[in-house]
C-alpha cells in the first residue's frame, strides 16, 4: 500500500506523526515528510489511524 499526501491540504499539524511515527514526520519547515513511500511492515493499523485522524483529510492509501 502506497501512502499519498495531498500537499494542497496538509498543514503539518503532525497528528499523523504521533500516531504512526515510522511513516510520518513533520520537518522544521512544517512540511510533512514521508519516511517511506509504502506502509512500513506491521504498521498498517497505525497508518490507518493516522489517515482517519488527519484534520485536513490530506492522507490516503493507494494499492
Amino acid at each position, binding site marked *: 500500500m502506497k501512502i499519498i499526501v495531498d500537499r494542497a491540504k496538509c498543514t503539518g499539524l503532525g497528528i499523523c506523526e504521533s500516531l504512526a511515527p515510522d511513516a510520518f514526520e513533520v520537518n522544521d519547515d512544517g512540511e510533512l515528510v514521508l519516511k517511506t513511500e509504502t506502509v512500513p511492515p506491521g504498521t498498517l493499523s497505525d497508518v490507518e489511524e493516522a489517515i482517519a*485522524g488527519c484534520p485536513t483529510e490530506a492522507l490516503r492509501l493507494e494499492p
Partner: protein
Amino acid sequence: MSARRLVVVGASLAGLRAVEAARKDGFDGRITLVGAEPHLPYDRPPLSKQFLEEIGADGTPPTFRTEEVLRTDLGVELLLGTPATFLDTRNRAVGVGERTIGYDALVIATGATARQLPGMQGLDGVHTLRTLDDAVAIRRALDKGARTVVVGAGFIGAETAAAARKRGLDVVVVEAQPTPLVRAVGETMGGALASLHLRHGTDLRCGVSVIALEGEGRVERVRLSDGTALDADLVVVGAGAVPATDWLAGSGLTLDNGVVCDETLFTGAEDVYAAGDVARWHNPLFDRPMRLEHWTSAAEQGDLAARNALNPAAARGYSTVPYFWSDQYDTRIQFVGIPDADEIAVVDGDIERDHQCVALYRADNRLVGALAVNRPTEIMKYRGLITRGASWADGLTFAQTRRKARDTADA
C-alpha cells in the same frame, strides 16, 4: 450487535465521526443525526483562522461532507436546525422540537456553547465566535473595516485579533487576567505568547475588564474598568465555552462541567455514551477526569463512543495525550499534554528573541506537557514520550539530544 437505531445528538465533528464509525463498523440499522444548527457538519478551527483572514472571499463554509454523502452513502437521517430538548433514559427517547424519537443506542455530542458577556444581547456588532453564523457575521464586519475590540486574549480572541491585523485593521484586545492563556499553557509561557500581539501591532490590555458595552441598538463603545472608553464597530467576545448540557437537566445523567463518563465514555445510562466537548471522561493516561475542547479528542471520542454504544460488551477505553494548536500572525503554537505543572523549562529557543521555542512541563518526576512555538518538528516527539510515561529526566535528555543534532546540522 443488537441495536437497531442509533441516535447521535450533536452534528459537529464528534457527531459526524460517530455516524461514520457506526457504518465503518458494519452497523446497518437506522442512524439519526440531530443538530441544533441548520448547517451540515462543518469544521470549526478554520472559522477563527483562514475564514476570517481572506478579504472579501466567498466564504465557502468548511463543510465536512455533502448532504448526498451523509444521506445516501452513509444512510443517515438528518434532523438539522432543531436542538434536542430532553433525554428520557427510561423510555429511551430524545425530544427534538415537537418530536420524540426513540433510540437503541445514543451518542451525546452536543459540544459547548460560547460564554456570553452580560449586556451583549440585543446589541448589534457584538459576537461570540463559535458557529459558522458567528464567523460569517464577524467576517462581514471585518470586510467593512470595523474598528475591532476583542474581549478575552485566549486562543479564539488571539486568532481573531491576528486576522484583523492581517487585514491591516486596528484592534484592541482586552484581557481581565494579568497574563493571557494561563489556563492553557501556564503563566510563564502565556506571558511570552503575549509578546506576539505587541510585535504585530495589536493593542493588548491585560488586567482590565469590560464594564459596559454602549450604543443605541448597535455597539459604539466599550467601557473598561480603568476608565477608558474604546470606540468600536465590532466586538468579539472570546470568553470561553460552557458544555451544552441544559437539555439534559432531569435526564438522570451526572452533569458536572459536562456529562460525566467513565473511561469508555459510558454515561451510566444504558447504551448512552458521550463524546467531544460535552464529555467529561476519565482519562487513564493521567488518571483524572478531563473535558477537552480540542479537535483531535472530539474526532477520536466520536468514533469510539459510537462503536462502544453499539457494542457495550466490548467497550474500549479512551486514553489520550491532549493536543491543540493555534495559528496566530504566521506563528504556529502547538501544545501536547497538560499545563498544570510544578515546573516549566524552556529547553530550546526563546519566543521574544527567536520567535520560536520549545518548553517542557513537569509534574512530580514526570514529563506531562510540551509547548512548541514555530517548532513543528519537535512537538509530536514529545507527545510520544508523554504517551509512554516518560520521566522528567527522559524529557530533558531528549531535548538535549535534539538540540545537539540541530546544532551539528547547522554547523
